[in-house]
Structure formats: structure tokens, C-alpha cells
């Protein structure tokens, strides 16, 4: 782990990103991770005041910056923001197949417990097929 690199990583709320790229997501916030002023990762989250479940949404780090704990730092910061916003729980979903193994390990290391396994199906409707 190159934790010493973290001094270069400035994580902050990026309002412009929130307004443009993620504009279709309501009540969503995004934080980004920067290395030497360059955005290399992000994490988005949503709050639900009724259930008090905060959702950890899309989050990712550029391939060439993986393996140095940036994703884990982003996640830890999101969890803290959820707590500060009064959430009681955090929820996240990710893939069960091999490319998602590092993500699952990261969530499990930060205390997430599996709740439900699901499968998503897709079907072409007749007007497309025909």
C-alpha cells in the first residue's frame, strides 16, 4: 500500500460534476479523488431521510491508479458523509462475477454484510426483434 501517496490525494465535493454528469440522479452527491490535481476516481451517494439508508452509488478509480487504496479512501469518506447526514445504514450493490471481486473485498473489509443476491434479466420486445 502506498498510503504515503495519500498526501497528494485531495478529495472534495465537485459541484460541476454533480450538475452535469450525474444530473439524472436526484439528491445525489459526488466526491472525487485527485492525484497531483488530476481526477483519478470518484464516488457518488444518495440519502434517504425516511429509511435513513444512505446508498453508496457508482464509484470507480482509473485502472492505472488501482491497487493503492484510493477506492477504500473514497468509500471511507462516503461512509463518514452518510453518518454526518444522519443516516443509520449504508447500502451498496455490486456484481457477483470476477471483475467485481476487488469491489466486494473492499466492501467486506469496511464492514458491509451481504443481504441479498440478485439476477437481472433482459429481453428484446417484439417491435425491436420484428
Amino acid at each position, binding site marked *: 500500500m502506498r498510503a504515503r501517496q495519500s498526501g497528494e490525494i485531495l478529495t472534495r465535493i465537485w459541484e460541476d460534476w454533480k450538475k452535469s454528469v450525474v444530473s439524472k440522479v436526484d439528491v445525489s452527491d459526488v466526491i472525487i479523488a485527485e492525484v497531483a490535481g488530476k481526477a483519478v476516481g470518484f464516488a457518488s451517494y444518495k440519502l434517504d431521510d425516511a429509511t435513513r439508508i444512505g446508498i453508496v452509488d457508482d464509484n470507480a478509480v482509473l485502472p492505472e491508479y488501482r491497487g493503492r487504496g484510493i477506492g477504500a479512501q473514497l468509500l471511507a469518506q462516503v461512509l463518514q458523509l452518510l453518518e454526518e447526514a444522519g443516516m*443509520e445504514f*449504508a447500502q451498496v450493490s455490486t456484481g457477483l462475477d470476477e471483475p467485481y471481486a476487488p469491489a466486494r473485498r473492499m466492501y467486506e473489509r469496511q*464492514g458491509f454484510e451481504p443481504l441479498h443476491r*440478485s439476477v*437481472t*434479466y*433482459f429481453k*428484446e420486445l417484439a417491435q425491436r426483434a420484428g
Partner: protein
Amino acid sequence: MTQESTEIEIRQAVEADRDTLAKLIVRAFADVTTNRSREEQFGLIGGRTWDEWEADIMRTIDVDRVIVAEAAGTAVGFATYELDDATRIGTVSDNAVLPEFRGRGIGAQLLARVLGLLEEAGMEFAEVSTGSDDPYTPARRMYERQGFRPYFRSVYYMKKLKQGAV
């Protein structure tokens, strides 16, 4: 069995159905709801029980996106759906049949009707998610029989935050 021969009628839901639908969703989902398993694993969510969260779905949903299956005038099943005009992907959302009316193809009829409605609304694709564990096996078989192909397997995680643990 006389019950087997009862004719099933599928119709569009209306505002007056809300209370009936709220009771129906609780009974029809009692054995297959993630809200319930979540409560068993993590305790009350937002100070309310799982059945209140289920009923809430029907109290707030756009009833234009709900269809109901009736047997002799009694609601025994329902299906909800969503449209997305940008992607043209229609989503088959919550759907269930009361335990004592299962195994007669009512769920399949509801699904076929929803797919027809998605096509009429201009959707090109239909998407649906269900559990990959045992209680969801009949649901998966139903989707596969009506031409759905699995494309993504996922896992939902939850974590109690510090202030909730106090």
C-alpha cells in the same frame, strides 16, 4: 378443484385500489421480500416494520403503472412497471401472487400483460431483477420461459453506521 376453474381477470389498477393493493403486497410478498430479510438481519429500518415499507410502495405508486389480477372479484395478484423513454427499456418492477393462488399461471399472465403494455408504450426492451436464491426459483423460471436472458448477477450489501449502533 373448483378454485382452479375460477376465471382470472386482469385489469388496470385505479385510485380506489390503493388500500387493497397495500394489503395485497404485504401478503403476497411475506415469504419473498428483501425488506423482511433486511429487518431480520439489521433490525427496524427508519423505525418502521417491513410490512409498513411494503404497503408504502402501493400508497405512493403511480397507479397507471399497476395492473391487478382478480379471481371472482377479489384481488389475488398484481404487477407494476416503469417506462424510460430515453433508453426505451421498460422495467418490470414488483409483482406477486397470493400464496394460495400460485401455481396456476397467474403470475405468467400478469407478466405477459405487462410486456404487452411495454410494447404499446414504445419500449424496445424489458428488464427485470429477482433474487438468485431459492425462494425466487419460480420467478426466475417464469422470466426465462417468457424469453428473458440473465445478464448481470449482483449482491446487495448493508452496514450499520456508528450512530445507528449506539
